[in-house]
């Protein structure tokens, strides 16, 4: 059992959850994730470590309620415990001095981009961050990203806050004004990452994405998270989660994310009807 030390809602559907997990807090590096199982009948889901505190022995994950497990997780409170937290898993982000780096966070992907952005800044890079969301309500970590960036651009698809448009529009704007980054990191929904990748490919800007396929054990044992990169099958849990965006088969990734669409819907509906009853 792992205790929730602190929980707060960042928006109506996005929670920030701090977990007491000293071993993971000690060994984690930016870009790595944990696998969480909420309760004894729960499934195992991967969540990127957004922050950690070695002294307190805690790690923080940021979760948007989408399916049954994330909904259950977000309904837990400070003092509650989840059944299992294991990690840190995956390869850490490659942190180095690249020069000018643009980090892009879409929706809850901003939580994943945050620790790596912080590390890029610390490594001496000039960091421009672009964060976006569908609407103002889903925009998170603006202040936190601002603190670790030299410049920040905020977008909402519907224009309910800051610039109206997609994160790719802002990136295109930078490139058009001859700000050509040495590296782009893009983390968010697959269509967003694909759009960024297509854009940067045109300008031959090295681009890294962090992939979020379905996972089970998270240690390379089951192969469910396989994704085609440069025509080779890779396991996102051990070979990733970060890959060269220009080599990722996004089509295949999106297709494999749909395997359990029907079952996921059923699970969520059952949970909601149960909540209505009680």
């Amino acid at each position, binding site marked *: 059992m792992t205790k929730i030390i602190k929980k707060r809602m960042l928006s109506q559907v996005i929670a920030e959850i701090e977990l007491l997990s000293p071993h993971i807090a000690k060994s984690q590096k930016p870009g790595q994730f944990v696998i969480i199982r909420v309760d004894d*009948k729960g499934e195992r889901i991967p969540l990127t470590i957004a922050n950690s505190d070695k002294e307190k022995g805690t790690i923080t994950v940021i979760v948007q309620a989408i399916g049954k497990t994330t909904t259950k997780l977000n309904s837990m409170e400070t003092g509650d415990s989840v059944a299992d937290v294991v990690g840190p898993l995956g390869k850490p982000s490659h942190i180095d001095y690249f020069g000018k780096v643009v980090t892009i966070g879409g929706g809850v992907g901003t939580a994943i981009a945050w620790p790596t952005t912080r590390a890029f800044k610390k490594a001496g890079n000039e960091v421009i961050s672009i964060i976006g969301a569908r609407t103002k309500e889903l925009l998170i970590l603006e202040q936190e990203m601002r603190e670790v960036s030299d410049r920040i651009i905020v977008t909402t698809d519907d224009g309910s806050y800051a610039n109206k448009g997609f994160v790719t529009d802002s990136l295109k704007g930078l490139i058009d004004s001859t700000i050509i980054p040495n590296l782009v990191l893009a983390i968010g929904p697959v269509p967003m990452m694909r759009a960024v990748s297509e854009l940067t490919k045109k300008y031959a800007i090295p681009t890294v994405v962090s992939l979020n396929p379905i996972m089970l*054990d998270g240690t390379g044992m089951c192969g469910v998270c396989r994704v085609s990169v440069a025509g080779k*099958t890779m396991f996102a849990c051990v070979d990733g989660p970060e890959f060269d965006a220009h080599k990722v088969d996004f089509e295949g990734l999106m*297709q494999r994310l*749909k395997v359990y669409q029907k*079952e996921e819907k059923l699970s969520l509906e059952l949970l909601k009807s149960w909540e209505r009853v009680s």
Partner: protein
Amino acid sequence: MATLDKKERLKIPRQKMLEQDPLARIMNFEEVNFGFTPNLAMLEAQRCLLCPKPPCVAGCPVNIEIPSFISLIAEGKFTEAAKKIKETNSLPAICGRVCPQEEQCEGVCVIGKKGTPVAIGHLERFAADWERTHGEITVPEKAPSTGKKIAVVGSGPAGLTVASELVQMGHSVTVFEALHVPGGVLAYGIPEFRLPKDILGSEVDYLRKLGVDVVTDFVVGKTSTIEELLNSGYDAAFVGSGAGLPVFMSIPGENLNGVYSANEYLTRTNLMKSYLFPEYDTPIAKAKNVAVFGGGNTAMDSVRTAKRFGTEHAYLIYRRSWEEMPARLEERHHAKEEGIEFIFLTAPTRFIGDENGWVKGVECIKMELGEPDASGRRRPVPVKGSEYIIDVELAVIAVGNGSNPLIPLTTPDIQTNKWGNIIVKENSTATTKSGVFAGGDIVRGGATVILAMGDGKTAAKEIDTYLNKKGGE
């Protein structure tokens, strides 16, 4: 009880365990075999000739004193029989169920040469089950504490055995398991219908009673490295991290939806209990037609699992034939009874997807057996132009496992061979790193539970010797 002479013993036919009817059992995930009744066990035990130089003992990788425990069963001393087995094998309820007895003890049984061998596996299982269900499990006395600490990586059969042996020698032992349930392949790989998880649970509880500390959700190599463990107070380490790396076939369409590795298919079912979805949260896909590729126990477990999910046509597609299958004979018979459709001398060449990216068929090619290969089995050779398509909406690849690279990758001074298996000294479990020992599938590649346990026993002795030497320096 009157003692029978040899002739009388030979007259008794081999007794069969009671089992679930095939038509009933394909509707559930409960254990197929019910086991022997006490009467059946005593009758079967009387078939043993109690050979003075028993080949069965030599045929057992951990050298259980088979005639001794069998004669105790014949006398009705079931608990004593279990204790006898436990002198050499700490997991008899498991071995009685999953060992390939026909290749080991029973394969060399004297009466098996003319007739059918003594059902040693069934008797082992009976004794262990008797002891467990009659609450007669007692914890043996341990040697006085040595003050030495050993880290065991992985809680599969190798890890559980080495832990049990070392703790009884007076050492302090911590077992680290990456998953949320201990047992390794016994938990995630072997199905409930072959090895009920409460049996595994009670074996692990027994280790805990012995004083073994079992830590789950701890990935050695990630949460802490071997080096960090050795620097934080552990005097030695044993690596039994298994063959947890699925092998795919590198054929087109392998990433289509509905194509599973056997590890994923079995882990969802066994560890995550997806057969109880939606009560349990982990889903699994079901289909009318399912193809499983491979001929080993994992393939058999996968195809029989598929049948239990209501699959109409569950195909087992293997490139060799019935005789060459590495799976346990009992599983093959059970699979046959359950209506598994075997397609031999056939191999897949590509998967075909529908417009939504789901598998809808598999193209196969027929094979013929050529000259024997390195394994001594005749090598399958494709028959040109014999390709044909089988309609399936789900496929499971069970053609083998690689070794899990996590430990070697994070412990550079542990050397591995070209397949990624950890290299150990000849007839030993010592790795190239001082104080680190290894056994089971991470050394052998995909092998059996009992061979992993044999390695665990060897490792325990070697670790004990190593610690004594180290202490004396």
